[in-house]
């Protein structure tokens, strides 16, 4: 019987090795897999490359992971936030590498990895600093930059409900990067608020089919809610 549920977040992330590329879902707190990030912090893998829209804020979650200095590089669109002091300090002292990507190119590059696309021409960023040194082309009178997929070893995401096949549904704008990161990683680990019985999720409304998900951990709501 297929059963992708694992008992704990620590078991779920236990095989993440030094040097791994790890995507982390979420846009702000919405869709942020807080418990999985905490498990990754406890888990001790070093020399990580992290893909997230931001670069952490406050002193918990992704910021706490960065503070361990086990992240070599971050690929994101918006590192600077009002409370991104952990990233800011590491960046200014040269202790973390930053690949800054326009948010839509970030999303499309992740999607391209999941979809087996080798590269694509995007109009976003053409003529800007973020396209410097990149291949460009004019197609039908419009200018484009060539961008490459971002693959990951692991994706850590948060969904609302999941079943033992790994089918997922999300909640409101917490959907954000979850479905595309799930498709772009060799191993996708989802924390869900609630386990659904097989057949309970409407087949018309499943957003991430289980084929993209390898491990699921149930983290009930009470534990998930946290003070921001």
């Amino acid at each position, binding site marked *: 019987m297929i059963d992708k549920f694992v008992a704990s977040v620590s078991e779920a992330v236990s095989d993440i090795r030094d040097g791994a590329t790890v995507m982390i879902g979420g*846009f*702000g*707190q*919405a*869709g942020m897999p807080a418990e999985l990030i905490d498990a990754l912090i406890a888990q001790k893998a070093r020399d990580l490359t992290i893909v997230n*829209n*931001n670069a952490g*804020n*406050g*002193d918990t979650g992704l910021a706490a992971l960065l503070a361990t200095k086990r992240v070599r590089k971050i690929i994101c*669109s*918006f*590192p*600077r*936030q*009002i*409370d*991104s*002091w952990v*990233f*800011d300090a590491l*960046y*200014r002292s040269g202790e973390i590498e*930053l690949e*800054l*990507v*326009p*948010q*839509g*190119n970030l*999303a*499309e590059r*992740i*999607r391209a990895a999941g979809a087996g696309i080798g590269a694509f021409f*995007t*109009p*976003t*960023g*053409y*003529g*800007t*600093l*973020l396209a410097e040194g990149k291949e460009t082309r004019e197609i039908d009178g419009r*200018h484009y930059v060539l961008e490459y997929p971002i693959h990951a070893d692991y994706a850590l995401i948060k969904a609302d409900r999941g079943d033992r096949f790994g089918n997922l549904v*999300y*909640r*409101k*704008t*917490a*959907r*954000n*990067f*979850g*479905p*595309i990161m799930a498709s772009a990683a060799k191993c996708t680990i989802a924390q869900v608020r609630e386990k659904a019985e097989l057949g309970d999720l409407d087949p018309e409304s499943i*957003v991430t089919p289980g084929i993209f998900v390898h491990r699921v951990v149930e983290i009930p709501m009470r534990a998930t809610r946290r003070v*921001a």
Partner: protein
Amino acid sequence: MSPRDRPKRELHPLGGSEAAEPRAWGDHTSAQGSTAASMAMPRYSRDQMAARVARDIPEGAYVNLGIGLPTLVANHLPKGREILLQSENGVLAMGPAPSPGNEDPDLINASKQPVTLLPGGSFFHHADSFAMMRGGHLDFCVLGAFQVSVRGDLANWHTGEPDAIPAVGGAMDLAIGAKHVFVMMEHLTKRGESKIVEKCTYPLTGVRCVSRIYTDLAVLDVTAEGLAVVDLVDGLSFDELARLTPVRLLRKPA
């Protein structure tokens, strides 16, 4: 270390918006440092500017409002007009902020502020959301700016200062995505320099992407021949505007 020990440099005025428009407006809102010229000048208020933009957005339009000054536009959309607001983090038909106590941490806008959903709204993932933007499906986006060039180049994401931590968010996608890109900004910096320029000195967000500029002095259309003045604030002459704006301006056709 606690947050209180940290320098407050490079912080976003609205706290972590993804539209990357740090200080693209607001330099002018304080009287301190304003030039005598700008102090004396007749100006549209920020609400007048927002109302003027709102007037140009028709029934049925799909619109993304950038953070900062552009968010004011939402308050001025005519009540009877159905206009659908998109946010790049995956929501269409956003409603106003929830009443206190009814915030949902899973329902936020691109500035990570709580919002609501109107009937007929929908959610989608990030790749679909930016496909919607990049594919030209939005009718309008309204953005703040540091500078706009006479040919419609936009600079609104980065000061280019050597110690700046760069952050771009969705700014470049918005700039090239919508059918009409409107810019709302003060006409002059606090030093009295025009933010409308021949060539942007700040790093670009997008090339030839702006269609119309709304400032506190005028409304101008980007055309192949220069900026066509659509509106002037009462009491300001075309020649006065032209003196303040170092690019080719075209008079409104009589």
